[in-house]
């Protein structure tokens, strides 16, 4: 890929990374990765994902707490159900499922988020720029006034 892919990282605000990892995510993320903090992964509406895709994101990472450790007891599980189904559904209409990754990270997983991101970047660079699902910038051939 010629230019850097655009990545959106959704992080649950309770999903604590180890100190250096959190420091890195908060302050040292490369500029092409956009961090969005949510109150819980359960708050992530499929609309957020779709808006990210239509806004031109090439990949989306959702990072939440471990199953038993959700601040709201079950938010991350219902989020998982929804996100899992939503990406399967997007896959059904031709969007590459592997552009969306859902991870559960814990305080102990030192360095994991960095590994995940670099792994994900490799994956996205193999897929290339997203070309299914039109972004909001594009309009139909001939423009709107045709």
């Amino acid at each position, binding site marked *: 890929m010629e230019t850097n892919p655009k990545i959106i990282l959704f992080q649950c605000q309770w999903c604590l990374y180890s100190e250096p990892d959190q420091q890195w995510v908060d302050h040292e993320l490369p500029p092409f990765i956009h961090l969005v903090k949510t109150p819980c992964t359960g708050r992530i509406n499929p609309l957020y994902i779709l808006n990210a895709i239509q806004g031109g994101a090439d990949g989306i990472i959702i990072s939440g707490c471990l*199953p038993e450790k959700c601040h709201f007891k079950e938010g991350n599980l219902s989020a998982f*159900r929804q996100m899992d*189904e939503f990406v399967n*559904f997007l896959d*059904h*209409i031709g969007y590459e499922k592997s552009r969306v990754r859902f991870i559960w990270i814990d305080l102990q997983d030192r360095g994991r988020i960095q590994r995940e991101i670099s792994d994900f970047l490799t994956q996205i660079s193999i897929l290339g720029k997203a070309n299914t*699902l*039109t972004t909001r910038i594009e*309009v*139909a051939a001939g423009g709107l006034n045709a």
Partner: protein
Amino acid sequence: MLDLKTKLQNEMTRLLNENLVDVFIAFKKEDSPLRPQPAFFRNTKELAQLEYNGLCQNNLANYLPKYSQETRIGMVVRGCESRSVNALIIEKQHPRQNLYLVGIPCSGIIDLKKIINSVGEEVTSFEEDEDIVSVVHKGQEIKFNRRELLHDSCLNCVYPNPVNADVMLTEPLPEGDPSIVREKVESFQELSRSERYEWFRHEAERCIRCYACREACPMCYCSECFVDHATPRWSESTVSPAGKHAWHIIRAFHQTGRCTSCGACERACPMDIKMTYLTDKLNFDMYENYEFVPGMDEKTQPPFASFNMDDKKRFVL
């Protein structure tokens, strides 16, 4: 079918006379025999207009959330409708005790567009029995095989019998074959990624954003839809590809675990957009992953409204 209509009329007369319901939702005749219309019967005088045949194409459960919870509603339910009613009861849109459901096992809804496309609008009479539909068009009688006229979603129907009726008007019909719709979903999935996207794009492209699919759907009862949100604006109201895609994706996805495959959305669409291939996939996944079929009873919460610690086992990483 005359027999069925009389039975329905008798049942409705009883309910209205004994004041067991405030309103009874069924269908009434219109000027054109092709277009029976949802009707709301409040007294027995109106019953002369009652109609029931295969052309009654709307899902009447759609009207439930529009009445207050105290209204005692009587309703004609077919298989899909009764499941929609259940799904609405689960979502507390109407209490079960205020509903009186008159069940009719359904042998499929006739797609009006199929008749019009083959003969035209000028149909002056419509008759049907189990296998044959005959219409009179410009004085000429034309016969069709009933199955050929059925709406596409009815061809895949698995549950033709109402699941929660208070009274059934006829004998139950044999259940449909669940593998038809499964094969449909699977064969769609076997297409290449670009073919699938092309299919979706082609269907969504014709959308005119009239939201007839939303309004015809019993499960789309939100008082404010995501497309109507002003802050933040979740999707474009412009008929750009992005706007149309967003509408079709999210509309379908909001039906996960709630859609009863009645096909009302497709029948309402003025641009003949196919939509059930989206919801079929969602239903397929719900069954594969959670063994859930929407609306089979009035208690089981749909998968997205519940959770299970076992889910994590499916999650590999």
